[in-house]
């Protein structure tokens, strides 16, 4: 956790699914359960890829069904490997579906960006800050954006600056950025979190009042 606060409430939700029990069985009962699980995961992967089909519209030669099958296969391996880690705090089906939806989403995000160059250019920040000047009613916000821009330039490390701008201004998906920088989603988010915290501290020290995000 990035900060020390409780993660979950105490009362778990009891799972009523019996698929888990059948997956832990042996013989034909187990085999039938694995086929059922794979079919479930494939439905979830197809759903996710269908939902994100617009992102793949410009990608030629990509078969959505192949992507769904790859995602379902990888999700199946992950679920079976982590079966003993399922703690019954959610429905088993919800727990299993998240692997398929995640695998499908990562594939779509990476495919959608595979031919797009990721330019880690701090100067792109100019387009945001310069456009913020405007009527009187926007003065405070423009001043805040200007202060943020200045602190990005002067208070963050080069790495923090690149990651912050790529993820929050340029809209590069974190999975894509992780792949390009040979990093991980978790490591990049930690860099982003540290950069944001530094900006908040510097802004507060400079007398800017910040509202909590909602």
């Amino acid at each position, binding site marked *: *956790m*990035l*900060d*020390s*606060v*409780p*993660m*979950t*409430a105490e009362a*778990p*939700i009891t799972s009523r699914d019996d698929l888990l029990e059948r997956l832990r069985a042996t013989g034909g009962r187990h085999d039938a359960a694995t086929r059922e699980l794979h*079919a*479930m995961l494939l*439905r*979830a992967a*197809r*759903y*996710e890829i269908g*939902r994100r089909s617009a992102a793949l519209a410009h990608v030629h030669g990509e078969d959505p069904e192949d992507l769904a099958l790859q995602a379902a296969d990888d999700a199946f391996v992950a679920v079976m490997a982590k079966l003993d880690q399922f703690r019954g*705090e*959610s*429905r088993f*089906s*919800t*727990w299993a*579906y*998240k692997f398929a*939806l*995640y695998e499908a*989403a990562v594939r779509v*995000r990476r495919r959608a960006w595979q031919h797009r160059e990721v330019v880690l250019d701090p100067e792109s920040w100019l387009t*945001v800050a310069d456009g*913020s000047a*405007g009527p009187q*009613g*926007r003065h405070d*916000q*423009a001043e*805040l*954006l200007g202060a*943020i821009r200045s602190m*990005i330039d002067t208070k963050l490390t080069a790495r923090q600056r690149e990651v*912050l701008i790529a*993820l*929050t*201004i340029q809209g590069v*998906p*974190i*999975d894509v950025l992780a792949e390009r920088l040979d990093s991980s*989603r*978790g490591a990049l988010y930690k860099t*982003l*979190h540290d950069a*944001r915290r530094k*900006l*908040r501290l510097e*802004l507060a020290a400079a007398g800017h009042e*910040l509202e*909590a*995000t909602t």
Partner: protein
Amino acid sequence: MTRHESNQAVDRLLGPAEPEATCDECFELLDVYVDREVLQGDAEQAMPALAAHLRGCPACAEDHESLRTFVTTGPPAA
């Protein structure tokens, strides 16, 4: 840039002010969060660090939206 766009830019840049979970912790507990949300309606209160992370991480927010929608609308028939 409109005021709304400007506010959104500030929110994206600064992220949540509250303590938040990591991406790995978010994935680990996303199913618990979604079932609490769908079945009990108290996920944000019960798991505030994860809720904060979902406000700050677009990729995890997308994954959350996908899982919540999928388990809410129900999977299509085979």
